[in-house]
């Protein structure tokens, strides 16, 4: 492109270009028109379908929010409500008419026979339903019917049973509905093959007719001679390692279900057809659908026909049908009907025995006291049996139970019984399998099985103790009652744990290992060494009284006896393991009890908890286990005070006055030390009073310091001055005390050494009280240790 000249007087020429046609612009409105027309068409042809649904209550419906869903897909929404008084579809009750706009695509669902119901979150015994509505809100569900199109519907109060597809429909007749409900499962050998579809009262209202739906693929299992009974969803499965009991679900256990079974004798009856009627029996035994077996007891046992039941791990699996004496009249033959679910487990390895009545909390209050019952241990085996030898007492142990098998030997077992729990940190980890007297009768052997997953908790260092019963302890802080569990109080229990010096390297326990069963945790954990203490009297001590050092319990008295000479008490105490070093020469012990005196109140808590033994470790290195308790806390002796970092002085007084050990020493009415003792002088002409000044105050005492007795009251009376009462402190008034003053600098003199003598004056001169020397406290550490 050539640059045009930029001169203003010459107008530049524009550069010519040919113009194009503009007709393409009209494509835009054309496209827009197509879009708009298409949208309008869609809206017109695929718009919402207005439908009304009559609900008995508008609860849970929200205008503009509550959706209609089919197979989880939203196909409509509630637009509006209208109250309908005396709706004839609802037998004259007031109803709520919901106007719902449906997607055009869902129009085929709106046929006669379509059912609508409101889905709300529902938690009941039979299950949790509609949980998603917690988040997304209630919705209306639809089950399509088949028939001509319809625009007005009446909602059903609860969801129809979830029955889809083809199947066999039979009717059961029962005197009572029991715990069956719509949707309850129908089992055949624990396999869910159908469900309860409906129930209603029969004509005449003397029976309940229950409609069952059996899925097509299982319909062949139902014969004319099949027996139906009320069952819960328990399944028992056997394997090499043992047998597991599985509940189908808690819901089926409670809500019940129907089981059926075709006895061998009826296997050739024709197949059932739609509409056939059957009787619903109360149990498999009533249905006569049980497997008859014979138990041979070698002695007479107390069993009741029709009432004694057979349990497997708490689950009823059979019932005694007939009891009679055997041919040789030395035992009994018991005919039992076993639940068909145990069919495969009645083998040569299965054991039956008679269990005594037990007090059992685990199965609820109703079953607190059970009568005799037969227990069975179901096992898989190679051979199916129908006749068993039953034991009249529970087996002591069964090595086939998976887990760690241990033997505990005890002097007596307390309330422990078969089935009692074994606890580790209050968690149940095992069970008592049985008990047996040792062959010589001296001990009881308790057989215990620890569950396999907890077996590693037991090692050769573990200790077992009995946790039956209740322990209580009281102190000022409160009363503490301890029990491992209520169950263990009644049924007994065993706990185990590791000893205090437990190390990780200890070998794990193996099946068959034997342990001692201690009677209590304290016994089991007993450690440390015994020491013997001679006391003049019992001083209120008891067995269990603690030994303390600086407030921490380091041991306890285990026994109190009169000594051999009958003039004192001899106590045996156990020092805990960590406190063993107290058992050496030089250790002193004394009894601490409540003390109420002029100096205050001490050890008041011992009024409630009782006195205890305080001990002070000795410096000696020789072990010592024999001690004599002191009457009171020992005071530091004079030699010791001389060694202490403070200042030890000796005051020469003509009389002792009311001074005694512990009397305070004041400087300007501040306590700076105390009297540590006194004794008569060598010539008995004076009393030596030993005074100890705290290290930080030792600089206050100088060569020319004056000491006087501050005990008692100093009363001055003058006509002009009035009454002047003076005492160093209220305690000094009663218990005595010493005060001192130091002259002003520089007359005060030098600091003094421990052991210096001063005269003790009876009272201060007025001048002394006016002294106010400036003395630096807290001298350097070197000085204070001089």
């Amino acid at each position, binding site marked *: 492109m050539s640059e*045009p000249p930029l001169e203003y007087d010459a*107008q*530049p*020429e*524009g*550069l*010519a*270009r*040919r*113009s194009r046609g*503009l007709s393409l*612009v*009209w494509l*835009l*409105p054309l*496209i*827009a*028109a197509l*879009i*708009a027309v298409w*949208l*309008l068409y869609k*809206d017109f042809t695929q718009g919402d379908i207005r439908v009304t649904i009559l609900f008995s209550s508008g609860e849970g419906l929200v205008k503009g*929010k509550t*959706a209609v869903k089919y197979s989880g897909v939203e196909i409509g929404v509630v637009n509006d409500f209208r109250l309908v008084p005396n709706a004839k579809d609802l037998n004259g009750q007031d109803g709520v008419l919901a106007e719902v706009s449906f997607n055009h695509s869902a129009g085929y669902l709106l046929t006669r026979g379509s059912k609508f119901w409101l889905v709300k979150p529902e938690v009941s015994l039979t299950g949790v339903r509609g949980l998603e509505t917690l*988040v*997304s*809100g209630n919705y209306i569900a639809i089950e399509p019917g088949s028939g001509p199109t319809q625009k007005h519907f009446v909602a059903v109060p609860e969801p129809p049973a979830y029955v889809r597809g083809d199947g066999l429909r039979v009717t059961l007749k029962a005197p009572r509905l029991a715990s069956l409900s719509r949707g309850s499962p129908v089992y055949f050998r624990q396999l869910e093959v159908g469900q309860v579809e409906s129930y209603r009262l029969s004509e005449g209202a003397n029976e309940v007719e229950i409609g069952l739906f059996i899925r097509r693929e299982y319909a062949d299992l139902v014969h004319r001679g099949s027996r139906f009974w009320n069952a819960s969803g328990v399944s028992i499965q056997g394997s090499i390692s043992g047998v597991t009991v599985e509940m189908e679900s808690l819901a089926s256990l409670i809500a019940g279900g129907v089981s059926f079974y075709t006895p061998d004798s009826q296997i050739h009856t024709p197949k059932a057809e739609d509409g056939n009627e059957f009787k619903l029996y109360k149990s498999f035994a009533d249905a006569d659908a049980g497997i008859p077996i014979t138990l041979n007891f070698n002695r007479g046992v107390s069993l009741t026909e029709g009432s004694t039941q057979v349990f497997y791990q708490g689950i009823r699996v059979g019932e005694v049908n007939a009891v009679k004496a055997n041919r040789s009249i030395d035992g009994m033959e018991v005919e039992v009907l076993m639940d068909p679910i145990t069919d495969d487990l009645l083998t040569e390895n299965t054991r039956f025995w008679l269990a005594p009545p037990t007090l059992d909390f685990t199965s609820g209050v109703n079953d607190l006291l059970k009568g005799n019952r037969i227990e069975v241990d179901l096992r898989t085996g190679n051979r199916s049996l129908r006749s068993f030898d039953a034991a009249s007492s529970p087996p002591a142990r069964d090595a086939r139970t998976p887990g760690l098998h241990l033997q505990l030997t005890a002097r007596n077992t307390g309330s422990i019984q078969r089935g009692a729990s074994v606890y580790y940190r209050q968690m149940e980890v095992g069970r008592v399998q049985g008990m047996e007297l040792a062959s010589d009768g001296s001990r009881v052997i308790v057989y215990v099985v620890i569950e396999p997953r907890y077996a590693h908790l037991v090692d050769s260092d573990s200790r077992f103790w009995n946790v039956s019963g209740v322990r209580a302890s009281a102190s000022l802080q409160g009363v503490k009652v301890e029990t491992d569990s209520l169950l263990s109080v009644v049924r007994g229990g065993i706990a185990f744990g590791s000893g205090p010096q437990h190390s990780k390297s200890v070998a794990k326990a193996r099946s068959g290992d034997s342990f001692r069963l201690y009677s209590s945790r304290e016994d089991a954990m007993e450690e440390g060494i015994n020491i013997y203490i001679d006391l003049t009297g019992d001083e209120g001590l008891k067995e269990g009284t603690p030994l303390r050092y600086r407030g921490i319990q380091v041991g306890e008295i285990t026994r109190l006896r009169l000594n051999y000479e009958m003039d004192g008490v001899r106590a045996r105490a156990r020092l805990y393991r960590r406190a063993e070093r107290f058992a050496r020469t030089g250790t002193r012990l004394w009894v601490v009890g409540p003390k109420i005196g002029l100096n205050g109140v001490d050890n008041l808590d011992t009024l409630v908890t009782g006195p205890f033994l305080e001990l002070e470790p000795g410096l000696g290195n020789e072990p010592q286990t024999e001690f004599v308790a002191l009457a009171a806390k020992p005071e530091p002796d004079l030699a010791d005070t001389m060694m202490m970092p403070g200042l030890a002085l000796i005051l020469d007084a003509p009389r002792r006055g009311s001074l005694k050990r512990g009397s305070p020493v004041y400087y300007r009415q501040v306590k700076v030390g105390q009297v540590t003792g006194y004794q008569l002088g060598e010539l008995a002409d004076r009393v030596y009073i030993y005074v100890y000044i705290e290290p930080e105050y030792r600089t206050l005492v100088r060569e020319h310091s004056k000491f006087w007795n501050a005990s008692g009251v100093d009363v001055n009376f003058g006509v002009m001055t009035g009454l002047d009462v003076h005492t160093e402190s209220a305690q000094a008034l009663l218990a005595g005390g010493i005060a001192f003053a130091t002259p002003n600098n520089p007359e005060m003199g030098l600091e003094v050494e421990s052991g210096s003598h001063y005269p003790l004056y009876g009272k201060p001169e007025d001048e002394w009280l006016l002294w106010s020397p400036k003395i630096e406290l807290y001298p350097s550490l070197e000085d204070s240790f001089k």
Partner: protein
Amino acid sequence: MNRPARALSQGFWTCLGCRQLVPKPPAASCLCPRCGARMHGRIDGSIMLTWALTITGALLLIPANVLPVMTVIYLGSGDPSTIVGGTLELYHNGLWGIALIVFVASVAVPVMKLVGLVLLCLIVQRRWDVSPRQAMRIYRVVNAIGRWSLLDLFMISILVALVDMGAIADVAAGAGSTAFATVVVVTMLAVRAFDPRLIWDVYEEKITAQPGLAQHKSHRENE
């Protein structure tokens, strides 16, 4: 004659980019010698282009209002809302101030723009007897309010970008917002396509035909 001189009648074109006067070339359009922009005496087919874009905008206004502009998904349940629906919801919730703003920005302004454009086209094409100053006023208003409709789109795009908390809350733009954006863009293009000088061309024509009227009119307008 106290009428101002016009570039075109003096044989000049004005460049719309840099206002350069250029002697009228022989062709229908040329490039500005100064800034290189395309120059026309008058924008080629201005009225036709404006009509086309205005009609496009008017048609697209239908999907923009029928289709949801955004879907607010709160706790798993979606709630698609159209422009009018959203405005009504705001109004029912007592936020009538915000409802008014949304209404003005997303309903009144596009409609006003389209009505204004139609009026301008008719004034020029039909030679309606409207004072050119009134027509210019319409043009300026339509030009000025053009971009304010984008307020809605800003809000939607910000919400879509910021509110993304999975199942708890989510905002998704709907097809309506695309249509709406197209309306805004198309109407802005329509305003650009309209050549306001045509108004004065029409006026000039009328005066030439009826000088007395022009005398009278220009007098009145000069007051």
